């Protein structure tokens, strides 16, 4: 069960090798979360994450393989995860794929893959997760969105628009779950130094996976529906969203 501080006893991570998810699992298990199920695409990297979770204090850690490019398989993945874990208090949706607009924005296959991994698969999976939560009468989903989806930029529009879709979906799923005992927390990190952004130029107010994880844990404690990381991005993007389109288009990057 989630305790008074929103801390789960058991956690399922969809995208268990993501740096932010790994940092979150380290913090949760260090704080008492006992049961961890990590689902991902790469068994070798999942095994690394398993060792990390054990070292941080998890009592039971298991893994599950899946490929987020297979959207039709999403409900099956969620069902087997719940069958394996029993009651799940927290589901972290951390699947994601960054595309390079310069080389890939004109490749329909790549664009479709980006939309599938960043939006279609998570939306399908969350729909199934919500059904399990309704039966459980409790549960929390943490969905990793991005500031890239808050106002989408030309330079990153393929990834940004997919995240924008996921962000809207997850926030409204939270509304749909009102009264069910379950809820959704949307996380909007800024530029995070991680394996996903390796080799890309850093943006202002960049952050680290550990800092994002700390903000998520605080958000769970406060029952926040949206977590910005770092928190000051909330004010920055409030201003950016009010910017007229012609000005927005002229911003660098």
């Amino acid at each position, binding site marked *: 069960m989630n305790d008074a501080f929103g801390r789960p*006893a058991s956690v399922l991570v969809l995208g268990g090798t993501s740096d932010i998810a790994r940092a979150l699992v380290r913090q949760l298990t260090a704080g008492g979360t006992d049961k961890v199920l990590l689902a991902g695409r790469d068994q070798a990297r999942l095994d690394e994450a398993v060792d990390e979770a054990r070292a941080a204090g998890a009592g039971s850690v298991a893994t599950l393989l899946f490929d987020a490019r297979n959207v039709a398989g999403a409900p099956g993945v969620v069902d087997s995860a719940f069958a394996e874990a029993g009651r799940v208090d927290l589901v972290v949706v951390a699947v994601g794929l960054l595309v390079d607009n310069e080389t890939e924005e004109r490749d329909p296959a790549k664009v479709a893959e980006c939309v599938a991994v960043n939006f279609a698969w998570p939306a399908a999976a969350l729909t199934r997760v919500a059904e399990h939560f309704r039966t459980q009468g*409790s549960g929390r989903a943490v969905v990793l969105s991005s500031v890239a989806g808050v106002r989408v930029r030309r330079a990153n529009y393929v990834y940004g628009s997919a995240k924008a879709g996921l962000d809207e979906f997850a926030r409204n799923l939270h509304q749909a779950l009102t009264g069910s005992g379950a809820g959704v927390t949307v996380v909007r990190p800024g530029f995070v130094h991680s394996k996903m952004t390796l080799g890309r130029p850093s943006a202002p107010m960049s952050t680290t996976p550990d800092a994002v994880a700390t903000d998520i844990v605080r958000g769970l404690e406060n*029952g926040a529906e949206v977590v910005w990381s770092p928190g000051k991005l909330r004010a920055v993007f409030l201003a950016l969203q009010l910017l007229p389109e012609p000005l927005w288009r002229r911003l660098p990057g």
Partner: protein
Amino acid sequence: MPKPLLTDRPAASKSTEGTPNKAGAPESEDRMLFGWGRTAPSRASVLAPEDPSGVSRALSLVGSARGVIARGLGRSYGDAAQCAGGLVIDTRHLDTIGGIDPETGDVEVGAGVSLDRLLRVGLPQGWFIPVSPGTRQVSIGGAIAADVHGKNHHADGSFGAHVSALTLSTPSGAFEVSPDADPDLFWSTAGGMGLTGVVTRARVRMRRVETSWMRVDTERHGDIDSLMSALERVDAEHRYSVAWIDCSARGRRLGRGLLDAGNHATVSELTGRRARRRLDPPPERTLRVPFPAPPLAINPVTVAAFNEAWYLKSPSRRAQIRHLSGFFHPLDALGNWNVVFGRRGFVQYQFVVGDEHRDVVVHSIEHLQRARCPVTLAVLKRFGPGDPGPLSFPIPGWTLALDLPVGPPGLRPALQALDRTVANVGGRVYLAKDARLDPELFRTMYPRLDEFEAVCRRVDPRGALGSDLSRRLQIGAERAR
């Protein structure tokens, strides 16, 4: 997907709860439930049976997959009376009160009767409830399940000691249980947080009083040592005692507070209006907080200001005559005071440590100050000997109860550190207040858990009984799941 329902109606049925449908069986209703601290809500099907046989029917039908637990007035602070995705048996219709035996004070009461109602029935006849927690809005079933204590614990023990028999509905049938006939089941039920079954009826022994007034001595003490010594001193001459602590005070004034010690006033001690109204019940009227406070309203500065004012307004006084409702249940005047903590809610942390570990009391106040966690209410009390219940909270020594708004980032780690300190000296925290304890430390604090689980297996072999609390702490059947 299977629906956790007893009736064959759809899960979303919004009918009035407890009203019989055409088939004569009460319907359940899906509801969000949380404890008095308003943290960790979960949804369950709630069923309010009309009578004990309805409780038995419900228990015989429910599957073990989702769990079932009783709920009275929802005054446990944490997750003891909720069962996510399962069935919650609301005892509100088990509301009969028999006649009070004029010789012994014994009375047969339904589990859903509140202490408030029992008091209003008893007082005009000169009978008071044997143990009174800080609120009257507690059901008899809940008072037994949490084995509640009051300001008279040092003299009279906890609630279970004043129950001579009870009827317990379990998944393997209904039993008449008494301390003589089946002591294991009786004492596991007292303090067992509802995990042995649903109490449907109990025989409670009331206390004979001459008046509904108290003769109270109040002492103001400027530091914790003086306050604790005074508590030790007054217990010999007073049936009731408790101390309020200003947890904002630091340094030399750390742990300063007010001590209230009282006895029931006799008729000869009353004069004037009070003598004419010697057995008056508490006022019926309660105020309500109109809206939740904004999150910033409760912070170290406002709490310290309130504490300062409260401390200064109460000089030491001897032998004041006060009505028992103000002495026992000051917070009942505000029907829903728990909403002042806003959306995030609050936790109450109550622990007990042995007499020789009074330093833990001092340490806990300092520790929460260092962690910058405001304490909105702190109550200190001495316990006498505990009763035989394996999960009953009281052990002889010092108990401190702290109301802590959720919000300060340091609160959770601070309480985890206090858990370890308390467990290390053989103390424990109170499950009726808990919403956050770690399962391993729980086992250290309650070393007789195995005895309790053996009783649970006897009456509930399929493991149908369970609550969010039993899941979180991995009690009984939940350990294997």
